[in-house]
C-alpha cells in the first residue's frame, strides 16, 4: 500500500509538471506580447476589477487551506470533518467562479472581447491590436484556469461523498491527497495570474 501510494503521488507530480509547462507557455506568450504592446497592456489591465481579483485570491488561498485540512482529517480518521472541509473547498471554488462569471459578464458589456470580437470604444491608441491581444490572453488563461477550478470542484464533491461514506482513513487516503495536490497547483497558478493581470502597471 505504501508503495502504491508513493507511485500514485509521483504520477500526480508528473502531471502537475506538465500543467506548469502548459500554463508556462501561455505566460511566455503573455510576457512577449506585453513587451510588444506595453502601453496598451497597461491601459487594458486597468479595465479589470482589482477588487474582484483580490477577493478571488483570498478565496482561493482559503480554499487551499481547507483542502490541506481535508487531507489532514482523512489521515487522522476524522471522516466527517474530512467531508466538511472538502465541501468548504467546493464552496470557496463556487464563490471564485461566481466572481469570475460576474467579471466576464461586465467585461462583455463593455465590449472587452478577445481577438477580432474586441469592440471597446475610447481606447487611447485606436486601431491597435494590443488591447484585443491582452483580452485574448486574459480570457484564454483565466478561462483555462477556470476550467481547472470546475474540474477541481467536481473531483472534490465526489471525494466529499466518498469521505462521508467513510471510505478514507489513515490506511487509504490517496485520492484526497492527490486531488488536494491538484487543487494547490490551481491555487499556485492563480498566485501568478493575479499580479500579472490585475496589478502590474
Amino acid at each position, binding site marked *: 500500500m*505504501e508503495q502504491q*501510494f*508513493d507511485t500514485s*503521488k*509521483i504520477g500526480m*507530480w*508528473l502531471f*502537475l*509538471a*506538465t500543467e*506548469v*509547462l502548459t500554463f*508556462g*507557455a501561455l*505566460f*511566455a506568450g503573455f*510576457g*512577449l506580447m506585453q*513587451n510588444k504592446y506595453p502601453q496598451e497592456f497597461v491601459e487594458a489591465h486597468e479595465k479589470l476589477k*482589482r477588487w474582484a481579483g*483580490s477577493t478571488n*485570491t*483570498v478565496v482561493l*488561498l*482559503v480554499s*487551499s*487551506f481547507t*483542502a*490541506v*485540512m481535508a487531507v*489532514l*482529517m482523512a*489521515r*487522522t480518521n*476524522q471522516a466527517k470533518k474530512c467531508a466538511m472541509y472538502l465541501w468548504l473547498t467546493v464552496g470557496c471554488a463556487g464563490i471564485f467562479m461566481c466572481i469570475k462569471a460576474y467579471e466576464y459578464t461586465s467585461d462583455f458589456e463593455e465590449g472587452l472581447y478577445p481577438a477580432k470580437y474586441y469592440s471597446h470604444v475610447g481606447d487611447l491608441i485606436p486601431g491597435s491590436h494590443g488591447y484585443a491581444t491582452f483580452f485574448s490572453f486574459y480570457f484564454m488563461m483565466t478561462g483555462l484556469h477556470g476550467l481547472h477550478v470546475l474540474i477541481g470542484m467536481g473531483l472534490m464533491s465526489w471525494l466529499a461523498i466518498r469521505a462521508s461514506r467513510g471510505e478514507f482513513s*489513515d*490506511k487509504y487516503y490517496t485520492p484526497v491527497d492527490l486531488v*488536494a*495536490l491538484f487543487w*494547490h*497547483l490551481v*491555487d*499556485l497558478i492563480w*498566485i*501568478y495570474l*493575479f*499580479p*500579472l493581470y490585475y*496589478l*502590474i*502597471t
Partner: protein
Amino acid sequence: MSTHTEHAENPKAETVKYSITLVALLILTAITIGASYINFGSGNVVIALTIATIKGSIVALIFMHLLHDKPVNAVIGVAGFIFLGIFLLFDFLDVGSRTNPQPINLHPMPAVTAPATAGAPAAADTKKE
C-alpha cells in the same frame, strides 16, 4: 506506513502550522496589492513576481507537503519549473536581442517595390483609358 503516520502524530500542531501558513499567505497578498499602488517604475514587476514566487514556494513546501515528502516529488516539481525557466530565458533573450523586428523586414520593401508600385497605377490607368 512510517511516512503515512509521520505527519499525523499531532493533528493539532498540523492545524496550527496550516493556519499560520494561511495567515502568512494572506499578509503577502495584502503586501502585493499595497505595493502595486506605489510606483517603483520597473521595480513593480520585480516586487510582484518575487512575492508571487515566495507565496508559491510556501504553498508547494507546506500545503503540498514537499518539505516533509519523499525528495523524488520535489525533484519532479522543481524540474518542471527549471524547464519552464529555460524556455522563458531563451524566449526573452531572443526578443530582447532584437531592437525592432518589423522594420528590418519592412524597410527594404518600399525601396524594392517602389518602381513596381509606381508602374502599377500607370498600367491600370492605361487599361482604363
